[in-house]
């Protein structure tokens, strides 16, 4: 198959554009659904009309966002078929299963209970309505769970739950339970939803602060801000704690990603974290020390080893080690991995050629070599066969080994901006929560202004988080198994360009419409909402 590299870049740009646009809505939905459930629970427990008005106002904003998030998500799924059909064909048996469960369980829950929650205020009892609001929130978050299980497989396709089937030339699932409970996926789910809770809490806090600055809807704003500050404080701290566990999983399953995130070209024991720095985009083989890879940097000694390996003196491999190998720690050079991958591809070809000729002995020989063990750990009961390394067989040009890792500067900056903003959110929520408890938030204009200015920041943080995850996984769609360049549909460049601009136009129109409606609702305030 021949893929036009231009087409590949356009297909990637289209997917990235759709993902980022879709991701403007997703975290808001994840968090806002629970905030609305909290507001309504307080209304049902107290029986006070003011809490009903608060619930209905925030639910209106949630509903606008929910509709747009759903529609952009569907475009996303279509792109797997139009632009990424090779990917869909090779790993569809694994990737498709969680998406199917999402459709059956989460989508049905969302669709059913959204209707009751949004339109059933006068049609069902208080209890049924409250249950529907909670089930809508749970359904929305379950939707994220199944998508992130699918994404977790792309980040860490462990041969504990899949194998590359020589008969069908596709990856097939061998253990559904391990696929859904693998910590890489679960920690990703927790990190994403808690980031969504933080984002929606900042939104509610910021809009409430805006009303307080203008001395409008004061009682409504004080109560909304209190709920948002409390939820946001718990969530933002949880994001940091689970983010640490997420980093641990990344460090141990995607060594090229963690090395790019920290600009670690040369592996070291007791590796530091770069708190601030400007990395250079250098070919890894030309870097002899990590100092020369930065224009300037401020480091925290040993922290990467502590966070990534739970040991201050642990070795963390750098990008160069992952290309030239490091026998002391068991890492093979890329050239050896590529050679084994190429042999696996040759076995696959030989198997099907023998099958076409009816040569059963040839088929058996190819199959035996395809599944022959190349590495094992008897203590842990782990093994790698040639088939597990088939993806490396696509990296024939080992003279250009930098193709095997993601670009350092975008991954480094995305990660560090996300982390920096995450700490800012904790401080903002903490200061707001203390002021609310003391009863001073209503008159603290500085804090209110900071809350308003901060409204767009979590969208930036979540987008950069997503970019860290997805650019950091490059050059793979499925880490170590399927390269991005081999995942695309071999179609004409013009087709991808045409749909790129079509979607861009649609997203701009939808984005403007969404913002206009949101601003109108916010401007009218709670009483104008219903």
């Amino acid at each position, binding site marked *: 198959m021949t893929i036009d590299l231009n087409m590949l870049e356009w297909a990637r740009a289209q997917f990235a554009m759709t993902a980022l646009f879709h991701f403007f809505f997703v975290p808001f939905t994840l968090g806002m659904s629970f905030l609305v459930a909290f507001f309504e629970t*307080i209304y049902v427990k107290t029986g006070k009309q003011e809490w009903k008005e608060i619930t209905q106002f925030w639910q209106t904003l949630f509903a606008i966002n929910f509709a747009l998030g759903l529609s952009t998500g569907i475009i996303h799924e279509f792109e797997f078929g139009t632009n990424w059909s090779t990917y869909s064909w090779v790993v569809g048996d694994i990737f498709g299963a969680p998406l199917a469960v999402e459709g059956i369980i989460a989508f049905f829950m969302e669709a059913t209970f959204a209707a009751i929650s949004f339109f059933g205020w006068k049609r069902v009892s208080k209890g049924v309505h409250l249950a529907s609001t909670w089930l809508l929130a749970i359904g929305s978050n379950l939707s994220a769970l199944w998508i992130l299980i699918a994404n977790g497989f792309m980040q860490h396709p462990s041969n504990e739950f899949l194998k590359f089937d020589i008969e069908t030339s596709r990856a097939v699932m061998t253990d559904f339970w391990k696929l859904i409970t693998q910590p890489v996926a679960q920690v990703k789910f927790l990190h994403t939803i808690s980031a969504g809770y933080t984002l929606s809490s900042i939104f509610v806090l910021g809009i409430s602060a805006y009303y307080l600055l203008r001395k409008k809807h004061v009682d409504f704003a004080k*109560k909304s801000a209190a709920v948002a500050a409390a939820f946001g404080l718990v969530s933002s701290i949880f994001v940091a704690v689970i983010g640490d566990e997420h980093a641990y999983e990344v460090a141990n399953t995607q060594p090229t990603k963690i090395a790019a995130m920290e600009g670690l070209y040369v592996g070291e024991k007791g590796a530091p974290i770069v708190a601030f720095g400007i990395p250079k985009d250098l070919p890894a083989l030309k870097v002899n020390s990590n100092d020369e890879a930065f224009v300037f940097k401020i480091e925290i000694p040993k922290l990467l080893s502590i966070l990534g390996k739970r040991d201050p003196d642990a070795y963390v491999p750098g990008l160069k080690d992952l290309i030239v190998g490091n026998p002391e720690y068991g*890492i093979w050079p890329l050239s050896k991995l590529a050679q084994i991958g190429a042999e696996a591809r040759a076995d696959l070809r030989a198997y099907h050629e023998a099958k076409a000729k009816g040569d059963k002995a040839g088929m058996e020989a190819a199959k035996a070599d395809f599944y022959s063990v190349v590495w094992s750990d008897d203590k842990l009961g782990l093994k790698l066969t040639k088939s597990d390394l088939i993806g490396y067989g696509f990296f024939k040009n080992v003279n250009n080994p930098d193709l095997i890792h993601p670009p350092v500067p975008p991954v480094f900056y995305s990660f560090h901006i996300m982390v920096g903003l995450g700490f800012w959110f904790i401080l903002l929520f903490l200061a707001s929560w203390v002021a609310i408890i003391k009863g001073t938030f209503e008159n603290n204009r500085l804090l209110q202004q900071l809350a308003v200015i901060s409204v767009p920041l979590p969208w930036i943080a979540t987008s950069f988080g997503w970019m860290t995850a997805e650019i950091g996984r490059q050059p793979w769609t499925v880490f170590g198994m399927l390269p991005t360049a081999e995942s695309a549909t071999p179609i004409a460049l013009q087709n991808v360009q045409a749909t790129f601009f079509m979607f861009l136009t649609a997203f701009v129109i939808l984005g403007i419409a969404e913002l206009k409606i949101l601003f109108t609702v916010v401007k009218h305030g709670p009483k104008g909402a219903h």
Partner: protein
Amino acid sequence: MKKLIATLMVFFGSFLFASEKLMPNGINPEVHKVDTTWGTILFFMWPILIIISYKFVEFTLKKSGLEKDL
């Protein structure tokens, strides 16, 4: 309670004493081996987070005097 502490010690112990010998592609073998128990525990942190968050919201509203009738 003792069982819970013992289970947690096994998990954190495995992190602390994970071997430095890596797989050929740089992946840590201890983490490559899918720990379904730890994954399940992680999943159940979600409802716990929601319950704690809601309780903290109620506490905040009461403590601030914004809603006493909860």
